[in-house]
């Protein structure tokens, strides 16, 4: 295998011979797909019936408060238990139009399920809220769209970015009677759900099904392949539309600032995941035998686990601090361990090694420790041999800069918004990961999109009045 093979992990690259010999090198495309089936299988009817019976229907339920979108969880579970699946799904969707994907990707272990009072009860186990939510949204069969549009307002709003924040905002605006035009840089709408979530978390093209469902309300036009700064300009949008909602997410990736970082075998995890998610034939992906993943968030876990599933023999996840500081939840860390991903903590990336033939051979890490709460280097270092390095050290905002174009004020690297999701620019709102609010979770993006839609609606109504 040559490093140049690893460098371009595209679906087009013919690379059956690059699979790890430890896993069956002759895995057929279909068996590889099996490896990327649901991480957690959906509940059966019977399981859902029994699980829903466990909900105590709390008054002022803590799970509702723990849900960023404030879904009335006890109500939807009670509906589900009474066999009213459509009612349950509607309850979920009226708070969170992406309740289906959130049921799959939400870190419920730190949100609703963590706050479930059943944890404190003798059963010591929360109601499986996420899986019940998936059951409800999967099984609801609405005739038409569950929400009706209000009378046409005559207003048109531009939404930049068709990720969770943008789609959530667009849907709510459409519901309120506005016309929405969504501009998306990629070919498909869906954002993170389509391009950035581990393949085993959102299977069966669910992201696109959900986009179709959301657009089903009507009044939303999606223009794909339209990137801000390239195809569309903020100043023009501001004059052409009654309001603009920026939901551009975080497009740039952080760098390690090391020599050899631009080697073709050093890749951004998000790029690889995107390729993986879009691949129609997984067997055509280039998979290194051994890889180092740098980072400690969910993206790091996602890439590490997926590499293992694809057949990588050795995957080591390296983090400069301890497990308790990792961005990935304990549950995610457990998933990594189940995938036999080696987790190396207290190690800072120091040197990337490339041999005389130009092949990546490994990486040296400086061991770290805490001294008076400061992370410092120790005199120890270690080298980990690998064929590829995947960087998952965070994503940053990238607002296209152009002369003469006014941009919203940036604060701490993200778009500054007030409590009404309004940026420093007139008529321009923003929400989702591109703003500094929240922990950059899908469910938070959905909530911000929804609240921003309400704020935009409010401002438009005021202007009319």
């Amino acid at each position, binding site marked *: 295998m040559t490093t140049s093979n690893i460098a371009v992990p595209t679906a087009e690259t013919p690379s059956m011979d690059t699979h790890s010999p430890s896993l069956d090198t002759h895995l057929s495309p279909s068996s590889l797909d099996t490896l990327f089936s649901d991480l957690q299988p959906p509940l059966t009817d019977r399981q859902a019936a029994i699980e829903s019976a466990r909900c*105590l229907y709390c008054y*002022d339920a*803590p799970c509702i408060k723990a849900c960023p979108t404030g879904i009335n969880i006890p109500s939807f579970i009670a509906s589900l238990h009474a066999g009213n699946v459509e009612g349950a799904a509607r309850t979920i969707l009226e708070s969170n139009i992406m309740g289906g994907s959130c049921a799959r990707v939400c870190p419920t272990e730190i949100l609703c399920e963590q706050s479930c009072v059943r944890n404190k009860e003798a059963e010591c186990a929360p109601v499986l809220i996420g899986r019940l939510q998936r059951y409800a949204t999967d099984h609801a069969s609405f005739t038409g769209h569950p929400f009706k549009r209000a009378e046409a307002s005559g207003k048109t709003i531009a939404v930049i970015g068709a990720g969770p924040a943008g789609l959530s905002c667009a849907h709510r605006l459409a519901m309120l009677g506005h016309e929405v035009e969504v501009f998306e840089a990629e070919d498909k709408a869906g954002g993170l759900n389509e391009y950035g979530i581990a393949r085993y978390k959102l299977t069966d093209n669910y992201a696109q099904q959900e986009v179709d469902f959301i657009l089903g309300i009507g009044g939303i036009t999606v223009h794909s392949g339209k990137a801000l700064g390239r195809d569309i300009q903020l100043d023009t949008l501001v004059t052409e539309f009654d309001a603009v909602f920026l939901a551009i997410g975080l497009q740039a990736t952080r760098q390690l600032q090391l020599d050899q970082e631009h080697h073709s075998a050093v890749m951004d995890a998000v790029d690889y995941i995107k390729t993986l998610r879009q691949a129609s034939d997984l067997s055509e992906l280039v998979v290194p035998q051994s890889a180092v993943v740098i980072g400690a968030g969910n993206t790091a876990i996602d890439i590490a686990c997926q590499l293992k599933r694809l057949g990588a023999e050795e995957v080591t996840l390296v983090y400069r601090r301890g497990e308790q500081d990792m961005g990935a939840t304990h549950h995610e860390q457990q998933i990594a361990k189940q995938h036999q991903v080696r987790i190396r903590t207290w190690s800072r990336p120091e040197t990337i090694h490339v041999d005389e033939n130009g092949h990546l051979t490994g990486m040296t890490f400086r061991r770290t420790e805490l001294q008076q709460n400061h992370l410092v280097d120790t005199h120890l270092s270690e080298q980990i041999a690998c064929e590829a390095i995947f960087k998952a050290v965070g994503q940053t905002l990238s607002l296209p800069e152009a002369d003469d174009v006014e941009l919203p004020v940036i604060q701490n690297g993200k778009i500054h918004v007030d409590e009404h999701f309004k940026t420093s620019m007139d008529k321009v709102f923003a929400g989702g990961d591109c703003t500094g609010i929240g922990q950059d979770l899908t469910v938070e993006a959905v909530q911000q999109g929804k609240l921003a839609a309400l704020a935009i609606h409010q401002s438009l109504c005021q202007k009319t009045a």
Partner: protein
Amino acid sequence: MADLSTEFAGIKSPNPFWLASAPPTDKQYNVERAFEAGWGGVVWKTLGEDPAAVNVSSRYSATYDGFGNVAGFNNIELITDRTLEVNLREIEAVKKSWPDRALVVSLMVPCEEESWKKIVKQVEQTGADGLELNFGCPHGMPERGMGAAVGQVPEYVEMVTRWCKQYSTLPVIVKLTPNITDIRFSARAAHRGNADAVSLINTINSITGIDLDNMVARPIVDGKSTHGGYCGPAVKPIALNMVSEIARDPETKGLPISGIGGISNWRDAAEFISLGAGCVQVCTAAMIYGFRIVSEMKDGLSRWMDSKGYETLTDFQGLAIANTTDWKYLNMNYKVVASIDDEKCIGCGRCYIGCEDTSHQAIKAIAQTDGSNKFEVIEAECVGCNLCQITCPVENCITMVKQDSDKPYMNWTQDPRNPYRDAG
């Protein structure tokens, strides 16, 4: 280990667990399997005159709790659909093989003296230990003037009981229907007819549910249905009350009672016995779990008796009767108040919302800085109704605490607030 053997209305059995007259006791095969499993006795499924009854398909339905367990059960089966002769021969054979077990035979024939005279003689010849008169079957048979149609008329109960006592030397147990307004009237009638015992309750007229897609009640017979007889855990409270009514009625006090109705475990059995039952009859639990459950019932009952120092069933039989009284004799000066254990409270708020919406607004919800709520009883408003304790999902989190009172016992007949006090 405690001695579980019983002598009920002169019928001996090694333990008080009998199988009630029902499908499980319809034939030799089942009854022998039951005896092998350890049941103390059986009441053979009701015999009638030939030609044998004919049953329909389907026959059973149920109500379920939230987890899918059967809470109540319902059937539209008639008495045995096998010929009298076959049943009699099998009864004879079983009794010969299992002489130590109680074998009682349930009977139902038309309300004519000759019919009863004939059948009791036939049964007596089998060597069976006793007769149970089925005056309770609520479906099918009443339309033919039998079952509940008899049980609902005290005069008929008395008359048929008298016939059976006259023509048979066997103990006669009268099985009562709960489909009446006051069970004491039929029990008194049985007593007047010289019954050796009563057994209760038979099944309750019921419809367990409707198939809303096809708009027909269950169980469904070719798109139609009819009311069935309700049994299983759901009917236990009704049965316990009726047993206690008979046990403490001056006219029937001391009349042996065989307790029936939702008995699923040793505790249920102990409850019936504490209200005076001399033995218990089980059906639904056996139909759902099989005959083997009797081993847990026997073991549990005897271990509990050991823990309480009861050596025989009679040591605790009827002990709860004296504490069952009329409302007017309850102590008006007794007061309990709810108490919430903060350590155990999981914060579900069910106590609060139940009390706030439907009772006495006696619980405060105090918002905490972490977003949770703390719940506190407002003692001055609490009437001690138990609702919060009932809704609380955590065991022993809410307790009802007795309040010290310097006032002596005073019942409603003595209470100055009672405008009819003098009338007593």
